[in-house]
C-alpha cells in the first residue's frame, strides 16, 4: 500500500463485485422460491417466513454495501465497523436460507455457499482495513 493511501483496493473491488453478485443472488433465489411454490406443495405459513428472510436480507444489503463503500473511501473506521455488523446479520440470514428453508435445492446450496464465502472474504478484508485506519 502507498503510505499516503489507506483505502484498501481489494476491499473496494470485492465490495463492487459483491454488490453485483447480490443482485443476481436475490433474483435467482426469488425465482426459485416462486418455482418451488408452483411445483411443490408450499403452504402459506412456510412460504411467508422464507420470503420475509429474503426481503430482509435485501433491505440490509443496501446500507451494508453503502457503508462499506463510504467507510473504505473516506478511510473512516466507523462506517466500516457498522458495515461489518450488518454483514454478520446478512450472514445469519444467508445461513437460514441455506439450512432452514422449506425446500433447499442444490442451486440454493451453491448460491448461498458462494455468498457466504464472499461475505467471509469481505469481512476479513474489512477487519484488515479497520486495523489499517485505526493505527
Amino acid at each position, binding site marked *: 500500500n502507498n503510505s499516503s493511501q489507506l483505502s484498501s483496493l481489494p476491499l473496494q473491488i470485492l465490495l463492487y463485485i459483491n454488490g453485483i453478485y447480490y443482485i443476481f443472488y436475490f433474483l435467482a433465489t426469488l425465482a*426459485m422460491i416462486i*418455482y418451488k411454490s408452483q411445483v*411443490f*406443495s*408450499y*403452504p402459506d*405459513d*412456510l412460504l411467508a417466513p422464507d420470503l420475509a428472510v429474503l426481503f430482509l436480507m435485501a433491505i440490509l444489503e443496501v446500507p451494508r454495501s453503502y457503508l462499506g463503500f463510504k467507510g473504505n473511501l473516506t478511510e473512516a473506521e466507523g462506517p466500516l465497523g457498522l458495515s461489518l455488523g450488518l454483514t454478520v446479520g446478512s450472514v445469519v440470514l444467508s445461513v437460514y436460507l441455506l*439450512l*432452514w*428453508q*422449506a*425446500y*433447499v*435445492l*442444490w*442451486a*440454493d*446450496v*451453491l448460491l448461498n455457499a458462494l455468498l457466504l464465502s464472499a461475505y467471509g472474504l469481505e469481512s476479513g478484508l474489512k477487519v484488515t482495513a479497520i486495523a489499517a485506519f485505526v493505527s
Partner: protein
Amino acid sequence: PADIRDAAQAPVRSAPAPVTDVARLCVCDLLVAQCDVNCCCDPDCSAEDFSLFTTCSVPVVRGDSQLCSQKAAVYSLDVEANPPERIFQLIDQVNPSIFCIHATNYKEALYLKSPEIPTPENFDQLLDQFGGAAFSAEPESWNLDTDDQNPPDANETSRYEFGVPVQTEDAFLRLPSPVVSSWCSDANPAGFLVNQATKCIRSVSVEKCDSIQALSMLFYINSSILAAVFQVDITVQSIIVQSLDGMRTLLSSGDVLRLPMVLDEVCINAVLGVNYHITHTDTGEIIEAAAAFVLGAISKETLSIEQSFEISFTQENTQPVPLSGNPGYVVGLPVRAGFQPQGYPFPAAFLSNKHSQLTILHSTSTQDCLAAQGARAPVLFGYNMISGCKLRITAAMKCQPLAQTLLDVLKGQSFPEYVASFGNSQAQDVLDWVPITQLHISEQLVSHTLQSSCQIPVSLGIEVKWTKYGSLVNPQARIVNVTATITSTTLKQLPSGRERIIPITSSVVFTDISSPAEPSYKAWPTIDIKLPFDFFYPFV
C-alpha cells in the same frame, strides 16, 4: 399447520407411521404369507419361487425422484444363472439436475398427509368439516335470498341465452332435482333451452300435507317469469289426477287451482309431477309458459314420494319433431319410420309421428303373449334387441284368429312401411326414405303337410343394414336396407285338454355394411394455357 398442532394436542392416538424404507416397501406383495407371482420384492418368496419367475413386475422401488440423492432398491432376475435367481441391490440414485431437492425442512413435503384421528377434542370440528354430503360450502351464485338481489332491468332479461337460468320475480324458475343423494333439492334452476327431466324423492307426512310447500301447485306457478317488458305468468295447462292405486284421469276443468288437503287420513291434490312447457321466440324472448301437473294422493303410511319434473322449450309457431341425428343416426336414438299416405305413385309426403315409430315387442314380467298386447319398445339405432313372450296354446284355439293375433303382437298396431335413411330426413323428401322389405319364411316340419295346415308366426326378425356415409373424418350412419322376416311354423292340432307353450321372439339386428373407406384426393389443378386467337394478328 393446524393439523400438526391438533395432533400435538391429541393425547395418545395417532395413525401408524408410514413405511419409508425402500428396502421394505413392496407394492406387488398382495397376498399375506404367500408368494406373489413375479413379485421380486415379496419377502414371502423363497429362492425356489424366484427360480420360477419370468420377469420382475416391480423393477425398482424408490422415493421421490426430485431428491438429489436417494436410496433405491433395484430388483432383477438373473436368467443366465441356473436356476434363475433374484438380484437385490440397494443403490444411491443421484438426480443430476441443478434443481434437485437437497434437503427439506417441511416434513409432509414428499409424502401424503396422514388423516387426523378423531379425538373427543377435535370431533366436532371434524364433523362440521366432513360430516355433510359435500365438503365445500354452497356456491353463492345460487343464493335465493331476495334481499341481496337487485332486480334485473328489462334489457338484461329480455333476451335469454342458452343455459342461462330462467329468472322469475323472486329468484329462478325452480326444477327440483336430486343433487348429491336422491332427495329433492329446490335450488336447481332451469336453464333456458335446456330440456331436462328429473326425478327425486321428497319426504312427506299426511299430517303436514298442507304445510309442505313443495306439495302444492302454488309453489310451482306462484312467481311469474321475467321476460321482455312484461312478466309471463305460468298458466296451468292440464291436471292429471292419480288415485292411490295408480289410475290416472285427466281433469276436464284443467285450469282450476287445487291445493292439497287432508281427507279421511289421505292427503289429496299433492303434486307428483310437473311438466313445464316454455314457448320462446327465435330471438330468445319467452312469450308463454305453461305447466301440466300430476296430482296424487298420499296415504298415511307413505313416508316419501317420488316427484318427477320436466321442462321443455319450444319455439313459437313451430312443431318440433325430434331428430335422431343430424344427418347420420346417433346411436341410441329411435329409428324414424313412417307411412306413405294414399296417392302413390305421386310423390307425397310421409306421415311420421310418434305413433308410427319402428317398435318391437316389449317383454313383460308375465311373459304371456296374449296379455302383453300393447307393450312396445322403440327400436333404437345401433342397439340390437331381442324380446319375446310365451304363447299358451290350448286345443280350443282356432288357427286363423290366433295367427292374426300373433301377427299383431309381433308387429304392433301400425307397423310402418318406410324407414328414414338419415336421422334428419324430412317427410317431404321421398327419396330419403327406405322401404321395409317383408319376408315370410315358413318352417315346414314335414314336407307332406302342404294341405291346409295351420301356420302361425312365431318370430319376427328385423335386420337393419346401415353404412357409413360422408367424410372419412366424420362418418355419418345411414340406413340402407331394412328387412322384416316373419318365420311361421305349423301348428299341429292338439288333443283336447292338452296345452302347449310356444316361445315367440322378435329381434332387431343392426349390421354395418359399409365398404372400406378409400381416401380420395383432389385432382391436381391443370394449367390451361392457350394463346388468344388473335395473337399473331397482323400476320395471320
